[in-house]
């Protein structure tokens, strides 16, 4: 079994728990069925599968953009499958999301897009300024802070979206094909960023087709969706093994 990125006792706590979860849109067939898994705090997961296998639907359940049609989803210890919608924002603030289509607000600058989650969370402007500047520098866009999305390349927009997702240092980071629009060098850099965030205790879930990306991070768990059902090739989604911290991790 491959070594997984788990640390001490509290890193083994589950962040996400799916029990018999199914999802269908309208009256159509189930796009996700019988999902049973647990994601551990501070672990790194790749989600893969063929197009149409249900990756994006599973991510939507993870970042609370969709409710399951059956089953139970527990996030940060709370059952959210049937939670009142008024309670959802506080949980969404603990989740960073990198959308496949970036979803930047087009009339806001890169700076303001990255600052958005902090402003929504009510942080002070001084704190926002330092966090946003640091994050833009981290993704190599420190000199493009005032640029609007339309003037940025696809890769730059992707990096702004990633900076926005991680600026709050979320407990759970969900990324849908985050390296789909960047070159291999930038892909490595972004993965390093996710890795660093993961090192601070963030649970990371990255949906990708990029086998090279998966291979570059051997410590990660692999989740594979096949026609809406989950395959667990690394065998640690239900009972994460207690292993020593990986090399180089505190």
């Amino acid at each position: 079994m491959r070594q997984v990125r788990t640390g001490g006792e509290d890193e083994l706590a589950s962040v996400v728990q799916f029990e018999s979860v199914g999802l269908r849109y309208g009256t159509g067939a189930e796009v996700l069925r019988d999902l049973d898994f647990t994601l551990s705090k501070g672990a790194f997961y790749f989600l893969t599968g063929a197009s149409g296998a249900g990756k994006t639907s599973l991510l939507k359940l993870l970042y609370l953009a969709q409710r399951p049609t059956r089953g139970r989803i527990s996030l940060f210890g709370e059952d959210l499958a049937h939670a009142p919608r008024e309670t959802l924002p506080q949980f969404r603030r603990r989740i960073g999301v990198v959308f496949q289509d970036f979803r930047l607000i087009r009339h806001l600058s890169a700076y303001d897009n990255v600052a958005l989650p902090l402003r929504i969370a009510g942080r002070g402007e001084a704190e926002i300024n330092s966090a946003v500047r640091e994050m833009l520098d981290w993704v190599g866009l420190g000199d493009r802070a005032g640029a609007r999305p339309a003037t940025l390349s696809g890769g730059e927009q992707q990096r702004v979206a990633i900076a926005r997702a991680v600026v709050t240092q979320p407990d759970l980071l969900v990324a849908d094909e985050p390296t789909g629009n960047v070159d291999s060098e930038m892909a490595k850099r972004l993965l390093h960023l996710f890795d660093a965030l993961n090192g601070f205790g963030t649970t990371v879930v990255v949906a990708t087709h990029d086998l090279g990306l998966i291979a570059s991070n051997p410590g990660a768990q692999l989740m594979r969706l096949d026609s809406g059902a989950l395959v667990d090739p690394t065998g640690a989604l239900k009972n994460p093994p207690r292993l020593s911290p990986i090399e180089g991790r505190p």
Partner: protein
Amino acid sequence: MTFDRIRIPGSESRLLPAEKLHGPTVAVTAIMTFAMIVVAAAGLALANAASIVTAGTESKLVVQVPAASAARLPGAVAAVRAIKGVRAVTSVSEEEMRETLERWLGSAAASKDLPVPSLLTVEIEPRANASTVGAGIRKAIPEAGVSAQSAQLKPLVRSIRGLEWLALSLVFLMSTATAAAIVLAARGALDTHRSTVEIMHGIGATDIQVTRLFERKIAVDAIAGALAGLAAAVVVLLLLGGAIAAAAGDLIAGAPLGIGDLLILAAIPVAAVILAVAVAHITLLKALRATL
């Protein structure tokens, strides 16, 4: 409360694109505010006129003394003055009546073939019974016709009261139309910026945070519209006011609108803005709650 909703941090206000005042909210609020003020002013002026008319006639009786008895007028006046409950008697002689009628009838008014009665206006004591006084007058001048002045003006007053209710109903209908237009504008704004709303929701914005952004825009538009409507209404009322006052002045004493009425009219634009923001708030929250 409304103005608190307008004052949101600049950083939040940038979440929706900065646009010039536009769209249906400004135009609808301006037109409706203008119409509501003008209609309400008309209604208030009518109410004042009705009050003045009724106040002046409630304690008065009109006595018509036939032309054939004109010679007995001085004695009749003395007899009526002597009746218990009568405070004052004013007589309008046949000659004065003919002079008045001359405006409409010309020289024919002077013709003796035209029977013109003399009139007595009898003002009764506040606590006196009008029927008892009327009976006393009929006893003193059997050939005289006696009627309450208020009864003569009753159809006119009833018509004025009807117009007041019509004005009030129109103001209510216009408020409803304004609210309906705001509902459509709020839903339209939400549809236009749906992607921004989805992003904000996705990263943890509450419905109230999203609603405040749109409320602010609608409040600013509504304030601009209400001010424009108020300005237009003031111009129209000032232009018409002189003519109205002149026309009313011949019939009733006093200004058609008092200070209280002007305060009511001034409150209409404020009420329109509060209505717009409240309706937008409810509409937006309801629409957002339909999403996850």
